[in-house]
């Protein structure tokens, strides 16, 4: 979706303000939102692309106003309700509905190291899925404007670049986010000259790489 989250190249967002000795979590609740999301993730009721799409659906003014972990909290609540793990009444009251069954958590302490260290994303090796493009080939990012989830930023659409690396095979976010299957395909690092993206104002030798799926690309 052409949302405010797709902000590469926008102006007016102010200076970058690094913080010295920044803590991992600024307040305890931020850490709880983060770990609740990870622990609920162990139930595998949604995938990473569903999760990202829920953040993108936060209305633009709200998206820019609230903090990072407030976005995570909003997403967690919406996904819990959408998947039927809790009801909105339960969220509002903070207590389980009368008569609801008590489950056994999907994640116990013993499972924490594996959750942190596991390679949760499927292998990128699959010889049965051939690449559509070759390293060194010139490609154009297609001019796609889906209303659903996509990982093709607006600033690259219609622009021409060169296949720099073939990263192997990955789930396709545009289908995977919407229950339409993983549609696995190759992902490439595509190198775009900064001038191709931003015009003559950009330094002549600088470049931007994006990781793009086969379905985002066409021969140029």
């Amino acid at each position, binding site marked *: 979706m052409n949302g405010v989250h797709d902000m590469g190249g926008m102006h007016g967002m102010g200076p*970058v303000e690094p913080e010295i000795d920044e803590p991992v979590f600024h307040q305890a609740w931020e850490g*709880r939102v983060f770990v609740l999301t990870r622990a609920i993730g162990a139930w595998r009721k949604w995938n990473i692309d569903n999760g990202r799409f829920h953040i993108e659906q936060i209305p633009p003014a709200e998206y820019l106003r609230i903090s990072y972990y407030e976005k995570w909290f909003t997403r967690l609540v919406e996904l819990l309700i959408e998947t039927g793990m809790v009801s909105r009444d339960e969220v509002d009251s903070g207590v389980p509905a009368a008569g609801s069954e008590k489950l056994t958590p999907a994640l116990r302490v013993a499972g924490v190291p594996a959750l942190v260290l596991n390679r949760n994303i499927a292998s990128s090796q699959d010889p049965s899925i051939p690449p559509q493009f070759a390293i060194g080939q010139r490609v154009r990012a297609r001019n796609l404007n889906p209303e659903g989830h996509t990982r093709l930023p607006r600033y690259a659409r219609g622009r021409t670049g060169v296949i720099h690396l073939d990263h192997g095979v990955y789930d396709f976010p545009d289908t995977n986010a919407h229950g339409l299957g993983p549609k696995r395909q190759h992902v490439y690092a595509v190198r775009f000259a900064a001038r191709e993206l931003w015009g003559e104002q950009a330094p002549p030798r600088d470049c931007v790489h994006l990781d793009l799926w086969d379905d985002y690309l066409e021969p140029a």
Partner: protein
Amino acid sequence: MGASDRDHQHQTVPPDISLRVKSLESLLVEKGLVDPAALDALVDTYENKVGPRNGARIVARAWTDAAYKAHLLADASAAIAELGFLGSQGEHMVALENTAAVHNIVVCTLCSCYPWPVLGLPPVWYKSSAYRSRAVIDPRGVLREFGLDLPGDVELRVWDSTAELRYLVLPERPAGTAHMDEEALADLVTRNSMIGVEKIAAPRPGAQP
């Protein structure tokens, strides 16, 4: 906005976020969806065990072991797995070497993708609208805000993490460190240098490592 509007707005603000999070956690515990001890263990992991010290060890190893550096640049996932730092949100890694001629920086314009197992959770500035919007269109301006004025003849390469690859910048080893061992070198490596927004300063002459 008048005073009465402000009052009205104040009255309709939802309960404090920390209370809402507490209430949700208590609900999820009561329903048996999460185990509070596992939550505590996860907080401890990300606050104390996973962080940029992991990435610094990779960098220091690459600086002191040419074969490891070659392996890291050719197959970062395998080389990082050797040190035990592959994991969630760092499953598929690419290492980018900064040199006197080429400077790499990493961003996620669409959200906040970041190599957790090697750098920990991302700092607020990395997730900010300012960094996400500007790193691709004005990377040299962003670097100046970090105190790095990159010469015009250095090629600047930006990497926008739009897929499931995660990037680790291998910063330049500073001058004056030939005498230092791997552990002392690791102490010099900053998180920001592994994102590519700063260089590592040479240690001050006479300073204890």
